[in-house]
């Protein structure tokens, strides 16, 4: 094994890791805003991927338009999910266990909805980035790797800008930190939480569009990605922006290396083992957000 092979594997892992980071980021955003761990985030990603499939392959809409429509439609879906489902429960202070079960049910619902509509046969969307790898030294890079990394970076920069520099973003961060105080300051919690769902779902859908370029789609894909996204968010640190990104990349790179050098059959076992180790020995993740309970 030469360093070149390792770098080659890492490059392959970066693209998929960047995609994992997107639902991970969504989980973190929603956790901050609503104190709710959304188990369905990766399934929203899959749903986005299938919407993309429907638009590009079935409806033959040009790729870039389909991308935009998918993101908007999924964003609206996230908004509705919050308005009609999750926010009323949060508002009524329903036991978090119950809301958690709700997100699990949502995840199963989306998976089976996809199954009923599109069946188990894997669906492929064209790879718009081309199939000709180019060479950098000894390393071969697929064009989609560069595109995915670029798109995810731009998305994250925009999001960072939105959260830090705009009034709405500041409002969202305020709700995340002090719900009651910000409500008293005239910030509409329901809108801010719905907006967080909108953003998170749109981000997940973008991940879905990107993944549809690389992998064939199956309804159960969400479970696989959910594992990676949850690993990413918990290894990186739940609630942390950089944590989701670093966690996603770490999971993507390490699983690619493990699958190639050790055994692809045990790739998910490996990720779970790392995740459980982290949960037990470093429950806050790498970028720990300080959480302490007032007794």
């Amino acid at each position, binding site marked *: 094994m030469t360093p070149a092979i390792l770098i080659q594997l890492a490059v392959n892992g970066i693209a998929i890791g960047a995609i994992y980071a997107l639902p991970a980021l969504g989980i973190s955003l929603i956790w901050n805003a609503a104190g709710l761990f959304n188990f369905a985030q990766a399934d929203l990603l899959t749903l986005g991927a299938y919407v993309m499939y429907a638009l590009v392959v079935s409806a033959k809409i040009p790729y870039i338009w389909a991308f935009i429509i998918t993101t908007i439609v999924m964003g609206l879906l996230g908004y509705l999910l919050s308005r009609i489902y999750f926010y009323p429960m949060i508002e009524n202070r329903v*036991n978090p266990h119950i809301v*958690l079960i*709700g997100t699990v*049910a949502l995840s199963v619902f989306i998976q089976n909805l996809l199954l*009923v509509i599109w069946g188990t046969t894997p669906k492929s969307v064209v790879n718009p980035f081309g199939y000709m790898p180019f060479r950098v030294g000894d390393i071969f890079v697929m064009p989609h790797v560069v595109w995915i990394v670029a798109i995810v970076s731009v998305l994250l920069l925009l999001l960072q800008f939105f959260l830090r520099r705009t009034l709405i973003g500041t409002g969202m961060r305020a709700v995340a930190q002090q719900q009651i105080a910000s409500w008293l300051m005239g910030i509409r919690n329901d809108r801010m939480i719905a907006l967080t769902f909108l953003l998170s779902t749109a981000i997940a859908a973008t991940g879905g569009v990107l993944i549809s370029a690389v992998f064939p789609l199956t309804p159960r894909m969400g479970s696989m990605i959910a594992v990676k996204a949850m690993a990413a968010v918990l290894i990186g640190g739940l609630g942390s922006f950089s944590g989701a990104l670093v966690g996603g990349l770490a999971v993507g790179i390490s699983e690619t290396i493990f699958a190639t050098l050790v055994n692809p*059959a*045990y790739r998910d076992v490996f990720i779970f083992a790392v*995740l459980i180790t982290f949960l037990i020995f470093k429950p806050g993740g790498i970028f720990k957000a300080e959480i302490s309970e007032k007794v």
Partner: protein
Amino acid sequence: MAKLQQVFKRYGLLILGILLLVAPLVSAQYQFYVLERGVQNAIHVMGLLILIGYSGMLSLGSAGLLATGAYAYALLLLKLGFSPWLGAIFAVVITTLVGLCLAFPAFRLSGPFLAVTTIGFGEIIRILILNLEPITGGAYGVSGYSKLFANELHVYFFMVVALICIAIGTERLGRSRIGLALKATKEDEIAAEVMGVNVKRAKVVAFALSAMLAGLSGVILANLAGYLSPDSFTSAESSSYLLMVVMGGMNSAIGVIVSSIVVTWLPEVLRFLSSSRLLVYSLVLLVYLRINHVPATRERFLGILRKFGIRRAADAAEDPCGERGAGM
């Protein structure tokens, strides 16, 4: 009327047990198989009642424990030549020990973190079964092991008697101080500790009991099916167990039995459901949670029920202090 209700409250489990015992006499062969699966599920879900309903530890890996019990039974018999009963006992013990491993993460983790850990645990077991082909038969599964009872009806009677005993035990546990300790762990761990509840020990007990019941259910599943494959133990299956425990009211053994059997039976009655079973289940679960836990929606829903003359059901559900509202 009130007297009848009291009788049912007191002897409900016995009545249910007798109904289940006579059911095979009046049901067709295929319906009988579905009923068997319902009772077998109920045993498993009773464990989830203790774990999720009483103790509030959301476990999504119970399919993994079910698989452990079923495979342990089959493999002990096939590979090590155990007799069926010895194999069954050891399979339950092994599952309990495996389940206990989950109690240790639960000391430090709760809520979503614990749920993720249990998903991982369940998936690891499934992937191991799938890939350790020389031992488990991989995707081909295992078959050809001998069974506890030669007569299928005897398995059923054994199961029903076991279920009723387990249900009575679970109800007793729920009302005892141990049950209270578990419920306190769910609502407020710190207050429970300060009141002298050894929370770690309570969690160990909850995990051990639920794993034991999952193991027993797995052994029975192996006996019912005669064939095991990893496909029966995906994490998606865990969600139908979740539905059974939630719809059962999260606090009552009778509720668990009824909802397990109904949920198992439903796709057979409504044929069109069979391919989209989990779709409907998850939708029902989503709607139920939303209606039951948001007071405004709940009121509106009960209002509609009344309008259509389903008064009694609505009135029963009205009392938020009733058995079902407790602790949720």
